[in-house]
């Protein structure tokens, strides 16, 4: 049997039962569409997280207290918030690590902040003038904290636009107003440009104050919660990471690097971590969708078995006029593959529309990748083969004499 004839036979057979064919492929359509939509959401989440990590600034290294823990025996609860980094550490990095372009020590705590009659709970970040450069931040109105503010421990604050909205209302000009952070009065000297982040570390929902002021009036000690270091370029990152580690080990008088009471992470590490989390999320979503694909496949098998039974006499006739077993099994196999392939194609389009809709309605960003589309096509064809094989084989093995007598 020629391929063209085979395809024509398939087309005629499938279009003879349009409603049933359509209902059967619906299972595959839903399965493939959900696989596409789900992975698009997963991939979208991944790219959102990646871009928010990279938008935090480029070529960044983070020095944080406590130890980076993999899977280990020791319980390291509380080490992440340990107080092992000091202002002096930051100064030492600034002075001795020559490749570092900017060093921004940060002391971040959450406080209740009040303005006239309103109040909110937000992050208060004690930092220096280097912060905007390191974190890609721009000042919208007024100015950022200066070196002089840090030296004189001025009680000045730069406010994020979201916090401004909460305390003063949208579009209000907060410059010059006073707010109370943890009952200490601060004068607002600037407001940052909205970066549009979200989640637990939203740069728009924060108040920036001089680190010295934060240490003296708010925290009451000289520790810092982390130090962000910006390298000149990506190539020098590894060297800087090495230099900082050595410097701090020396300063903290620790000889065994495994016992370090701080962690130096670069953006690539954080990206890799975030990717592995979102990768797991994507796999989870895809496997849930995969189950519905499996159910769709069972539907195909069911329909094909019904089909074989209904067309027993036709199979008998075809065998009587000279069709070989392989002709019959190919015909039924191609029918099921055609069904799933068609279902796959419609499913991909539907999934794409769904993913677009989710993004359009603003739930989350989605991203349909070509390899997912190709994979979905492959999987749907494979499902046709797997679930079509048994019915096709059953058809091909029918005894022509009995098949012709079948009522």
């Amino acid at each position, binding site marked *: 049997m020629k391929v063209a004839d085979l395809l024509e036979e398939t087309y005629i057979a499938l279009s003879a039962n349009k409603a049933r064919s359509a209902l059967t492929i619906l299972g595959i359509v839903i399965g493939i569409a959900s696989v596409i939509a789900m992975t698009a959401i997963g991939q979208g989440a991944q790219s959102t997280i990646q871009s928010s990590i990279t938008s935090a600034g480029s070529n960044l290294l983070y020095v944080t207290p406590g130890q980076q823990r993999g899977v280990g025996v020791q319980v390291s609860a509380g080490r992440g918030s340990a107080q092992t980094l000091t202002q002096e550490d930051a100064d030492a990095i600034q002075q001795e690590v020559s490749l570092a372009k900017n060093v921004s020590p940060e002391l971040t705590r959450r406080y209740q902040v009040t303005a006239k009659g309103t109040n909110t709970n937000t992050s208060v970040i004690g930092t220096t003038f280097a912060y905007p450069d390191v974190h890609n931040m721009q000042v919208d109105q007024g100015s950022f904290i200066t070196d002089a503010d840090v030296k004189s421990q001025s009680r000045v604050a730069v406010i994020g636009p979201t916090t401004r909205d909460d305390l003063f209302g949208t579009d209000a000009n907060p410059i010059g107003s006073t707010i109370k952070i943890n009952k200490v009065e601060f004068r607002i000297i600037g407001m940052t440009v909205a970066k549009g982040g979200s989640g637990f570390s939203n740069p728009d929902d924060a108040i920036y104050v001089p680190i010295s002021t934060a240490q003296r009036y708010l925290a009451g000690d000289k520790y810092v919660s982390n130090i962000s270091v910006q390298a000149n370029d990506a190539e020098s990152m590894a060297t800087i990471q090495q230099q900082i580690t050595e410097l701090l080990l020396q300063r903290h008088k620790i000889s065994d690097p495994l016992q370090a009471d701080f962690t130096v992470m670069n953006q690539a590490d954080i990206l890799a971590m975030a990717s592995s989390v979102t990768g797991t999320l994507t796999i989870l979503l895809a496997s849930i969708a995969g189950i519905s694909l499996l159910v769709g496949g069972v539907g195909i098998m069911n329909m094909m078995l019904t089909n074989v039974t209904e067309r027993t006499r036709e199979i008998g006739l075809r065998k009587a*006029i000279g*069709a070989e077993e392989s002709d019959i099994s190919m015909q039924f196999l191609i029918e099921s593959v055609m069904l799933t392939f068609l279902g796959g194609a419609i499913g991909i389009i539907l999934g794409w529309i769904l993913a677009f809709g989710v993004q359009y309605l603003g739930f989350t960003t989605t991203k349909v990748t070509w390899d997912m589309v190709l994979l979905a096509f492959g999987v749907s064809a494979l499902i046709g083969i797997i679930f079509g094989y048994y019915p096709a084989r059953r058809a091909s093995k029918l005894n022509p004499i009995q098949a012709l007598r079948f009522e």
Partner: protein
Amino acid sequence: MIVLDKITKTYFNADEEVPVLKGISFTINDGEYVAIMGPSGSGKSTLMHILGALDTPTNGSYLLDNQDVSKLSEKELAHIRKDKIGFVFQSFNLLPRSTVIRNVALPLIYSRVAKEERTERARQALFSTGLSEDRFSHLSNQLSGGQMQRVAIARALVTNPSLILADEPTGNLDTATGELVLDTFKQLNDKGHTIVLITHERDVAEHANRIIYIKDGSVLRDEAKKSS
């Protein structure tokens, strides 16, 4: 040419052996028109299955055009059916919702004949059964019984087989239509086609030039009609 030599067929049901054909021998020459006649249960259907290469005998040999068909594999049997046998069934067995032309051309698909040639050969086969041309593009289930059976005959003819096997071809037709179909066979035989008609009806068998009577799995009588 068909040469059957001591064909036996025994079915094995559970522990029981059921002999259906008990040593059948006869020869049918090319161009003959033979009726195989017998009451139901005589084994004529089983004989037809063996003649049509749908089944193989338990013992004995069956030479079709000098090829021993009795010991072929399923795949080889399919080839024999494709090239040498044309079937006409009592219940027509046309593909529903398919045109007359497509039904007739169907066997040629398995011989890998190109589409244009298939259509042409299907038309020729239909012409020789006397079906009027305006029916060629009708769907098979829009036809009358007699028309359907002529389509089925055309389908049997289209591969130009060595043998046309008709199994009770008039069983589902009224007498007048049956006569028409039998006339068609007669005309085909006049053109040189070898036809074997399986029937239990004397009237039908009378149309052939030779009648082989089967009873209880054996040939009871083999009589040639005096050519009229």
